[in-house]
């Protein structure tokens, strides 16, 4: 049986761990060609690579800062040379930083906005040249449930993710006529990232608030993402999918 992403050329930013890694693995299971970027965690990147290889996928792996324009150009350029183009870009790289406004210093703000907002802009812009030329492609921006409604979230994080929502809407509108779709996936608290770090009472609060009574798994969210980036999905663009357990 051929996979749902057979031969699809996918790039996931921040793919060395957490949801990014699960996205890479889910895509690979469906037959995709997978590339991912990471910033610092070489051991995690190596681990992701090994897991992808175990699925029969030989990933391309790039180290760099998503907020570095040259890095974005280099990654997309290398993939274009290697694969002839790019079908799927997932802007997943993010920063987890929990801090109240009283302690939110300018470098924190810049790092957050650079990673979560400037990064997606740079990578989208780099990838879209080829996608528009091919009149085919899709971008999936990974947001967060807290940008969909008022919940307690660090201000710079909420602002960056809400900004990403605006970027998604505007890009969807702007590149739709070229057959390129841009959507947003905003998961709730998962078994990776923040969900593993929060104090137990916070996780309990989340469970109590969520209609499904649980936190999510990166694996189930990644499974949902497969459809969103696949060729089966032809009519959704500018859409927001928020698997958050019914918060």
């Amino acid at each position, binding site marked *: 049986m051929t996979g749902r992403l057979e031969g699809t050329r996918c790039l996931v930013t921040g793919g060395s*761990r957490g949801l990014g890694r699960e996205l890479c693995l889910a895509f690979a299971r469906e037959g995709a060609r997978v590339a991912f970027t990471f910033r610092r965690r070489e051991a995690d990147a190596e681990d992701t690579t090994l897991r992808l290889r175990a699925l029969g996928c030989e990933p391309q792996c790039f180290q760099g800062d998503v907020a570095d324009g040259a890095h974005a150009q280099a990654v997309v350029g290398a993939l274009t040379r290697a694969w002839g183009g790019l079908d799927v870009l997932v802007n997943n790289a993010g920063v987890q930083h929990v801090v*109240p406004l*009283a*302690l939110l210093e300018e470098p924190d703000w810049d790092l957050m906005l650079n990673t979560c907002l400037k990064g997606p802009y740079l990578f989208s812009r780099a990838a879209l040249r080829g996608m528009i030329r091919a009149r085919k492609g899709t971008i999936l921006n990974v947001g967060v449930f807290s940008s969909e409604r008022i919940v307690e979230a660090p201000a710079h994080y909420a602002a960056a993710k809400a900004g990403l929502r605006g970027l998604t809407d505007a890009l969807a509108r702007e590149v739709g006529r070229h057959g390129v779709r841009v959507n947003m996936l905003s998961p709730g608290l998962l078994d990776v990232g923040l969900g593993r*770090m*929060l104090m137990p009472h*916070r996780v309990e609060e989340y469970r109590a608030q969520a209609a499904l009574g649980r936190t999510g798994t990166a694996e189930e969210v990644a499974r949902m993402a497969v459809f969103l980036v696949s060729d089966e999905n032809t009519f959704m663009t500018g859409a927001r999918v928020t698997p958050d357990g019914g918060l």
Partner: protein
Amino acid sequence: MGALLHPTTSLCRTCKRALPALVEAREDRSVWLSKSCPEHGAQSVRLSTDAAWYAATRAVKPVASAPRRTPRPVHFGCPFDCGACAQHGQKVRLPVVTITSACNLDCPICYVYNKNDGTWHMDVAAFRRILQHLKDDLGEVDIVNFTGGEPFLHPEFMTFLEVARDAGVHRVTICSNGLFLAKNEPLVKRLGELGARVALSFDTFDPQTDVVLQGSRLVEAKLRALDLTEKYNVDVTLIPVMTKGMNDHEVGAILRMAMERPNVRHVELHTITYTGQGGTHFDPSRSGRISMVEVLDRIAETTHGWLTREDFVSSPCAHPLCYQIAYLLLDPDGGPPVPFTRFMPREALYACLAERLYLEPSRALEDALQDAMDRLWVSDEPEAERTLKILRQLLGALFPRDRVITREEALRAAERASKAVYVHSHMDEDTFDVERLAQCCDSNCAEDGTTIPVCAYNVLYKEKEAEFMAAPRSWGERSGDVKLRRLAVLA
């Protein structure tokens, strides 16, 4: 005659019968408890040197939290129906399990009874039953404290630890004099692996004082135990017993050491009680007696003000005259620790302590810290900036930007960022006050499901037990003439 503060029931220091007692403030502002035994005459003892502090502290009402199960009917009246009885005000927050009568020391100040001839050891099955009773009563067993004797002398001690761990007890503490730990590195290593904590008695740095209080020179061994527990990541609570004129001037030095040693989580300062096999004969004039507020003031003097009595709040889980608690934030840059009360209202700290004897991550604590950060941020006070910086470093440790840490790592980082100082005042026959006893949350737990407040256990109930006493006493006359007559009528 002074001003009456309140009446209560106490005990005769000699025959331990219940006696009506009055607590009064004298002109010099001291507070005295007075009573008269028909057989042994008038007795009075100073409870405090500061009547205003005593009255204000006593006015704090603990959070009502009655035990779910009260196996003993109210029959003789407090304190003779412990188990708990239906009039008890607090559920067990600190279950104490006495697992052996054996001890390798014979400390002059010891406030329990031990027995080394015909040693008794609790069997593991009995402990399992105790855990089951506690689970039935409390839902979850957050903490268990093993004591003795010296618990490490129990031949199956490790099994107890494993049983507690397997039962999901979050915090296991072991009262110890540290001698065993100092000599037994593999034991300490194993404690670290099991996540057990040691409550280490530590009264003095001075060898002479050591001999007076503990009957032996133990400082070197205790420091060695501290080094080893640090090496193997075993959290330690230091338990110094404060005795006026003997070691109270050392409290600042002990606290400083506690702040500096990373594995020391708490200091629980006890005030001397003249009960138990040592305490009853130690210091016959009882001139070493020291009240809670005196300890607080000695702390302020000997720490040069980085910890004062205003930094302490009562525990909402116990009688306010039994537990005073201060939490301190450590400065990673080496400055003096910052008591929580310097950046949050005392009421907020008090509220955060409502659920447990120890501060745990909670919504209330998070909100209090968030409020504190906002307040510090808008403040012009010179200390605010340093405190905010400390909190920022703490947040950085809880949510590091360059990596994902596990919840357990985050909890550890949070724990290691602060320390607690408890002043815990036990009662002996002289100071016995049933009002305090009725709000006790530290109970000695038995396999029949009874839980007896520790002071009642040490002063009264342990004497009934052949396991600990060469000549166990029955206690008919203890409950006092009046109640005895009533008993006769009932019979």
